């Protein structure tokens, strides 16, 4: 066991959209930083973009955490989108069928544009 770090930064793009930049690992133990960033969204936010450009590692616990985040976003009638995933993690989203609920885009600009569509 070694110590890994999950870092999240929430950047507001406009009144309705925020981008959560995820760096490091996404595992079941990443709940606090991910939910803290999501907590910045507020009531008016209609779209959350998860930027995984800085993602190092994700396991099945991380997939479970994303399902939980998706549930919370759906409850608030918010879209959840993802960008910056490498091919390997795109495949994992496909395998777990998360891609059917979380729109995947290559770039942040594409994800933000899709959020507004």
């Amino acid at each position, binding site marked *: 066991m070694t110590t890994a770090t999950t870092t999240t930064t929430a950047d507001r793009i406009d009144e309705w959209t925020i981008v959560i930049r995820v760096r490091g690992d996404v*595992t079941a133990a990443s709940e606090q930083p991910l939910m803290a960033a999501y907590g910045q969204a507020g009531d008016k936010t209609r779209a959350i973009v998860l930027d995984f450009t800085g993602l190092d*590692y994700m396991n099945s616990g991380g997939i479970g955490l994303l399902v*939980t985040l998706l549930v919370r976003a759906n409850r608030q009638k918010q879209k959840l989108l993802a960008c910056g995933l490498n091919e390997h993690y795109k495949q994992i989203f496909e*395998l*777990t069928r998360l891609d059917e609920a979380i729109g995947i885009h290559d770039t942040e600009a594409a994800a933000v544009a899709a959020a507004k569509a």
Partner: protein
Amino acid sequence: MTSKTPVETPKVRDDAANWAVPAGRLRVGEVPPGAVNLNVTGRRLVGPVQGFGQLWQKTYRMRLDGIAITPPDVIREWKANYGAFWPKGNHFYAPQAGIQPGVVVLINGESLGGVEVSTGIEVIYADDESFTFMNAEGHPAAGIVTFSAARDEHGVSAQVQVLIRADDPFYDVMLPIYGHRFEDQMWTKTLVALAAHFGAHGDVTVERICVDRRRNWSQAKNIWRNAAIRSGFYMFGAPIRWVRRALKEGREA
């Protein structure tokens, strides 16, 4: 708006070999003797997003205190003897390859009314300290199950964590009547058997969280692929199949 929290995770960076490759539809390789291959071939995997009922996260944990063992030891033995740790009446037909990413496994399990439900899972992730199953369409639970072992300051513990929704309205009705109890017994007995394998004894702790109380009504159609109902039809159709086979053999003789 930055949040930074150190967390403990296994140091596995190049994990491509630990994950299954998405294949779209499930394909069963070898069918072990005695296994019923029904409701698996051609089906897709179903995660929590595709299920119908409320979303539950349940965590079953057991300490393996008093024995000199490491988390990889636990997982290695768990993978090698997985089916043997299941309660009687349930069959996990692991292929020769064992529990590896991408392996599809047939399951024949008992249910209410004596119907043997034929379904399956795919191993979607496996490493030295954990492995994860995702269920086939028609399985009572749409979701993922992760088996893991970890060390803390007190010793090693083994854990089963499920993140599931009832796959369709039929299973959703059955969940409070039978499903939750069945699942609790299933994983509690599994952990007790695993611990006994190492000569350890103790109690299993259970934590249940309803992550989403809402139902996915758009997934009510999942009932058409319900493995319990289809297995029931298959079982009750056995005499007709037997007569047909006998007539065919008689014509050929």
